[in-house]
């Protein structure tokens, strides 16, 4: 487990910070979901998370699990259910590292 140390390096590391907050041109699936053509990885996460909250998609029996609706399924690799702890990783898939 590494949060303390890592967190500091991320906020101090301009490249990693840029990776998180730079606006990125979105693929069409994601564009449909967020309703705009550019968004940062952080912004996208916030958007998806608030979408889950407003539509009450968390499983009532286990809050850690999200039952995807059709719209959410389209951007989370078509999974019918995702766990909250894999959400950042799944979103990251849409934001590949910029080719050098």
């Amino acid at each position: 487990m590494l949060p303390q140390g890592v967190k500091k390096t991320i906020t101090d590391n301009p490249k990693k910070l840029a990776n998180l907050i730079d606006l990125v041109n979105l693929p069409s699936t994601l564009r449909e979901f967020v309703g705009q053509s550019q968004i940062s990885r952080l912004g996208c996460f916030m958007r998806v998370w608030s979408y889950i909250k407003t539509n009450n998609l968390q499983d009532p029996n286990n809050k850690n699990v999200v039952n995807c609706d059709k719209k959410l399924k389209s951007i989370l690799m078509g999974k019918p259910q995702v766990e909250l702890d894999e959400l950042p990783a799944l979103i990251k898939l849409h934001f590949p590292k910029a080719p050098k």
Partner: protein
Amino acid sequence: MGKIPPSLRSLVSANSLIRTPLQTEKSQRHHFLKKRPSRKQQRKDSDDSLETKRIPSLFKSPELSEAKELFNSFISTKKIPPDRPFHNSLLQSYSLMSTVDDSISFLHHMIKTNPSFSPDHATYHILLSLACKAPESDLSPVHKTLNLMKNAGFEPNQGTTDIAVRSLCSVNRVDDAVELVKELSLKNSPPDMYTYNFLVKCLCKCRVLSTVYGFVDEMRSSFDIKPNLYTYTILIDNVCNTKNLREATRLVSVLNESGFKADCFVYNTIMKGYCMLSKGSEVIGVYKKMKEEGVEPDLVTYNTLIFGLSKSGRVVEAKKYLKIMVEAGHFPDAVTYTSLMNGMCRKGDALDSLALLEEMETRGCSPNSCTYNTLLHGLCKSRLLEKGIELYGMMKEGGVKLETASYATFVRALCRVGRVAEAYEVFDYAVESKSLTDVAAYTTLESTLKWLRKAKENGNMV
């Protein structure tokens, strides 16, 4: 259960060390401020009492012609007594939005249209303070204003020097301030001790020690301005902050040689220096020295002492001093209790520190955000998550902000037992309450979740 590598533990506890000193320092600074500028304050009040009389949003634009018109309309309607403070406050509010040249023209216009108005020192000080904040990189606007002032028959006085120095330092032009002080000292308006000490303090903040000493030496040799007890306190504080205790000791001996007697503030400063190095025995040493020299310890002394002892793991002694301080007639405040809680939590007595929270509340001392964060951090570290969640509920209710370290520990503790949804909720609160930046809050959450996935894959999790 996930395992925490030992390297992280030290990291986290090191982080929690940083928390309370900030507070102790703050309260200490507060004392410094209270004591020092008393005379300065008075002078400022008499010099430009217009600060309070300022008429905001009177001038709609920085346009000179409009300002003149406005002034003319005031004169013609005679609604307000056109005395000097009124003119000064007009100039003050205009200068807030315009340039040096325009303000000067406006002053000339006021003198011309209303001959009964005669400017005084304060009038020119308004212009001077504006000139010091002008975007020019050299001192030409300042010189211009000073010349204007001299031509009007007002020689710069100590107040002038003070205002110029403070204005320059407020826009981070410390070198210019030093230059100006030397120049004005040559022209018979040397800085008084308040201005001098203020400048030394600014130099300490943003220049290396040798520069500060250079300035002190030059002022002594050229203008016979000698450092006083406050100057030494500032210098000692500075070297203590850079953990250079040897230099601090040297300064104390210089101070004694110059005929000053170290007071409570000097001792508190040195004690703080030892606290930062976690040297418990030396902290007690300073306290004993004070007693020997007949200096009466104050609240800050006891707070520093208790903080230092807690920090170096000597909670039992810290508690003893809590008793002594109460017997000496001081009321322990939030800083005292928080320091003690920090020490207890570090020892793993999170429950005891929770009990201390109740005790402090029954004694009529309300906890601050630092207290709550210390406790939350301590409870999570001692694996008392339920208590932590309860405390978090209280914090949320009271709108108490989370600090980086306690937030991270709490999120991690929640994730460790698989309560990811609650961790998300804490993340939401951290963002909503603006405790942390979105980036900081998210990176912590993301890396914790990443660790959680890995732990699950390795079969470390239930």
